[in-house]
């Protein structure tokens, strides 16, 4: 049975919850009361979900709810639109009496949250629904305002409101994992497979300053950790997709003994060449990938918990049919140690501190290709290697006093990066060529951030974000420094940035579930290490080889967002409009001193152009048609203008939308879904000779059933009508896959 909780958005920031008592009736009917943590007002239509089950309910007009549950241990998730969702553990024993009292904290800024649990992921976004997910990208793709740069049928790079790369803060459990590929083939989002994804938090715009200095948005991929509420669990899943002969298998297990809990997972996937709509398979478009994760949690007393985590990801033979190179091997290893302290005072609810280290290695090669005929870098093989090593510490302290909430963040990390490239001509008279793309660039980064929430008066809540970043960086290898000195003048070319950021959000309750939000921000983002110190880095957007610029200024952004939400028992609406004025927008300028003799060998340097201006909005709607049937729709649009060149910005998605009809009855469910995009003809012709993209309309259908205890089957067809299309953000107009039949079988204990 489909419940309204599925369509309510959870709004997530590190949670504050006041649990007064957890006691239950002998009949195991749980009574609870959900209140606003700041005002004490009861929250109607808040949702309570029992994780790992299909059980859940919503609160009545006085904020009360009831749940009937057998004996056992449960994990409850309590969420309500506009509030920070929270989870709690519930131990059901007979003869419990007192009701639960749960406080939810207003989130004030808009956060999209996608929650995944178990073999059948559940997405608490009005428009986001997928019971069959081949990758974390599928989840994010359904959030309006989020798009992807596609370089291959692999590892898409997230774009939020038209911005990407260093403009967006992408972290895994708050950990910075800096890509090792100078061609950005390795966004860290590809390291979190769905079996390890607990929750995805997305904030659009530069309003969330707790994760990083950014102007586009933050994406935090929160991974699954050991679960003390489950003594033993195991999930396995096998699936097959026809369009690329995708075979994948996943397994995850957990075990708890007393104060110790472990969890491990492994997955493997392998795809062959994929076929676009109505066309033959694209050669060299497959990949192979495995992923493993291991976590060990130890509780020390009732207030301390230590978790050691390891996440490994390997991808190889990844074909990039529209790029010059393939990824021969891409490896990532992420280690962390997290200490969580819940002092059990009302003043400090939680203090989490983490130290981490990660290493990313990336080998590119074109030895499998015929390089004689290509336009760029013709008749030469050019194996490339890149690596990064990032060491960091992250500490988040939550404080509360009366109706005030304050979260303090200390965020420090250091990244060392190296990249090089050989060029072996097929002609014997051309000597081997070699260069350093990144010569041991060291970037250090320290930041403090404060996130403060307070009610101003009844129904009006304010959230203030402050962040101060400091980042010194330099090139450590003399040979690389010498090349940059030839370009920028002799000196150590060291750079040190200090960056202040501020954001303010106000939320006004309008009554009967309506809410109006105004957010303002003046924030910045630092140049990336490649923008500062890269050398001979090919940019597929404009087709130029780039030299980094140590003198770049940070991009600065002034943003405004106006949001509206309204939720009744039949309809949910969420909409926002934004504008984003980016100063010192980092672009590319022709390098007159470095000339090639063909149009395919062109050089640019990064520079701060005057400004860019983005504006747009997103809207989502959910209509409950029947108890078992709902209709959803989303639309998002971004318009970007490069004010210096007076032309549209490059890689800006067109008007895009999803709509779906979802049914769920007894053990059966089914979705009929359409994704559509309007043509994009606002393109960057001066900067990048970018071409326009046609619109498309693609229909997906899927369904599933429970075959037996813990056994689920789902089948579906993506791109039912085998439409040939490509996204505007797809490099080289690489088409998307055509009709894909798939089947997934999962088993959980």
């Amino acid at each position, binding site marked *: 049975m489909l419940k309204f909780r599925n369509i309510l958005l959870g709004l997530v920031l590190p949670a504050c919850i006041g649990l007064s008592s957890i006691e239950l009736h002998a009949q195991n009917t749980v009574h609870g009361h959900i209140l606003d943590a700041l005002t004490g007002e009861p929250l109607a239509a808040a949702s309570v979900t029992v994780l790992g089950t299909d059980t859940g309910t919503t609160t009545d007009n006085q904020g009360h709810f009831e749940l009937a549950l057998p004996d056992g241990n449960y994990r409850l998730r309590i969420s309500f639109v506009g509030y920070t969702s929270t989870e709690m553990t519930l131990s059901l024993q007979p003869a419990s009496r007192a009701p639960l009292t749960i406080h939810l904290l207003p989130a004030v800024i808009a956060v999209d949250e996608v929650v995944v649990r178990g073999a059948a992921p559940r997405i608490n976004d009005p428009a986001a629904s997928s019971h069959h997910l081949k990758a974390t990208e599928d989840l994010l793709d359904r959030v309006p305002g989020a798009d992807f740069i596609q370089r291959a049928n692999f590892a898409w790079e997230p774009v939020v409101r038209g911005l990407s790369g260093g403009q967006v803060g992408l972290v895994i459990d708050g950990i910075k994992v800096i890509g090792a590929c100078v061609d950005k083939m390795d966004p860290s989002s590809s390291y979190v497979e769905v079996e390890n994804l607990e929750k995805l938090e997305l904030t659009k715009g530069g309003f969330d300053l707790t994760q990083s200095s950014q102007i586009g948005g933050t994406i935090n991929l929160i991974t699954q950790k050991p679960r003390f509420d489950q003594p033993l669990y195991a999930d396995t899943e096998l699936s097959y997709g026809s369009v690329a002969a995708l075979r994948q298998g996943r397994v995850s297990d957990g075990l708890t003994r007393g104060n110790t809990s472990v969890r491990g997972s492994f997955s493997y996937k392998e795809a062959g060449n994929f076929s676009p709509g109505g066309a033959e398979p694209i050669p060299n478009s497959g990949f192979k990938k495995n992923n493993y994760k291991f976590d*060990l949690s130890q509780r020390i007393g009732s207030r301390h918990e*230590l978790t*050691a*985590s*390891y996440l490994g990801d390997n991808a190889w033979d990844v074909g990039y049919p529209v790029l010059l190179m393939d990824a021969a091997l891409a490896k990532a290893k992420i*280690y*962390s*140690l997290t200490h969580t302290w819940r002092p059990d005072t009302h003043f400090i609810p939680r203090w989490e501190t983490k*130290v*981490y*280290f990660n290493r990313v290695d990336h080998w590119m090669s074109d030895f499998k290709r015929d390089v*004689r005929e290509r336009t760029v*870098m*013709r*008749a*030469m093989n050019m194996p490339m*290697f890149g*690596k990064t*090593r990032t*060491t960091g510490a992250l500490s988040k302290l939550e404080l509360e006093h009366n109706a005030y909430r304050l979260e303090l963040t200390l965020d420090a990390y250091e990244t*060392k990066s*190296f990249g*090089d490239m*050989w*060029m072996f*001509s*097929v*002609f014997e*008279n*051309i*000597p*081997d*060529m*070699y*260069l*350093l793309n990144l*010569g*041991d660039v060291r970037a250090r980064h320290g930041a403090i951030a404060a996130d403060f929430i307070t009610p101003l008066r009844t129904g009006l809540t304010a959230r203030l974000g402050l962040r101060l970043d400091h980042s010194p960086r330099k090139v*450590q*290898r*003399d*040979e690389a*420094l*010498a*090349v940059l*000195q*030839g*370009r920028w003048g*002799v000196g150590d070319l060291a750079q040190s940035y200090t960056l202040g950021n501020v954001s303010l959000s106000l939320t006004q309750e309008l009554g009967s579930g309506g809410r109006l939000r105004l957010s303002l921000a003046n924030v910045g983002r630092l140049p990336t290490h490649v923008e500062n110190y890269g*050398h*001979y880095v090919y940019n597929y957007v404009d087709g130029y080889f780039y030299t980094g610029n140590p003198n770049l200024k940070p991009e600065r952004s002034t943003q405004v967002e106006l949001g509206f939400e309204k939720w009744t028992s039949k309809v949910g609406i969420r909409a926002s409009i934004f504008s984003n004025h980016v100063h010192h927008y980092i672009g590319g300028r022709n390098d007159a*001193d*470095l*000339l*090639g*003799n*063909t149009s*395919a*060998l062109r*050089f640019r340097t990064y520079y701060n152009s005057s400004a860019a201006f983005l504006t747009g909005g997103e809207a989502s709607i959910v209509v409950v048609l029947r108890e078992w049937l709902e209709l959803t729709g989303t639309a998002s649009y971004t318009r970007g203008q490069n004010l210096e060149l007076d032309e549209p910005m490059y890689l800006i998605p067109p008007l895009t939308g999803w709509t779906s009809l979802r049914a769920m009855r007894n053990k059966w469910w089914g979705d009929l879904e359409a994704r559509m995009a309007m043509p994009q003809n606002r393109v960057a012709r001066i900067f990048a000779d970018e071409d326009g993209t046609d619109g498309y309309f693609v229909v997906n259908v899927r369904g599933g059933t429970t075959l037996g205890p813990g056994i689920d089957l789902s089948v579906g067809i993506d791109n039912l009508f085998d439409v040939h299309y490509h996204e505007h953000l797809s490099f080289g107009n690489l088409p998307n896959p055509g009709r894909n039949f798939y089947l997934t079988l999962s088993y959980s204990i």
Partner: protein
Amino acid sequence: MIRAAMLVMLLVAGCAPDITDTDFFREHPIETDPEDTSVELGVLEDGPLAIRLTASDSLRIGINTISAEVKVGQAPVLQADVTLSPQWIAAGRTIVSPLDAGELEITDTPGRFVGAPLFVQPQDEKGVWQLQITYAASGESGEAVLPVQIKPSLWVQYTGEYYVSWILPVRPETGLDEIELGLHRLTDEGFIPLEDATLDLYPWMDMGAGQGHSTPYEAPVHMREGRYRGSVNFIMSGGWDMTVFIQRSGMPRDTIDFKGFVVY
């Protein structure tokens, strides 16, 4: 947990390629220890004074590094004037080529003096080389002549009018390199340094298949005695063509091309 904590301590070391290290014209790999290739040219003895001349490599047309160890018995002589003058002898005449007073400079090693004489050979003439040595040290002074073997090389190119010598760098590295060129003309008086020329340079990397690119550079300007200095920022290692344009008033523009190799 221990492993994770230890890994936090790890630092990065970049990995550089093991590329054959060579001089600009790939005539000889340059070893890390100059002692491995050093060649003894001869020892000059004058009473208790001994001057031992060695070259860092076999002598060749172009610039060469020669050092002199000056000793009295086993004791190094700290102050000495030693001048080397390369001379080309053919058809009964002696051509000073082109340094006539290459004075060696003192080094940090006591009793050791170094210089970089330039050997420029007239085109298509057969003859022999000698080094004329003038010395004054430890109360002794005099002149001597040392016959030497000089290998032909690409370090000096002849345009038909000018002798253009590639003087520096001997081993160009990626990054910003200072370029020094020598410009001489052969007259009856020997090699005459030309100080009034306007030089330009064009660095070019041929990447094959009709592709190639230049790199930022500054044209050499005259410094002293026919030597011109400029700079080139080699953006990558590999083969580089260095075209030199020579312009003197009233003369047609001349061009010469050095094809060399830049190491990482």
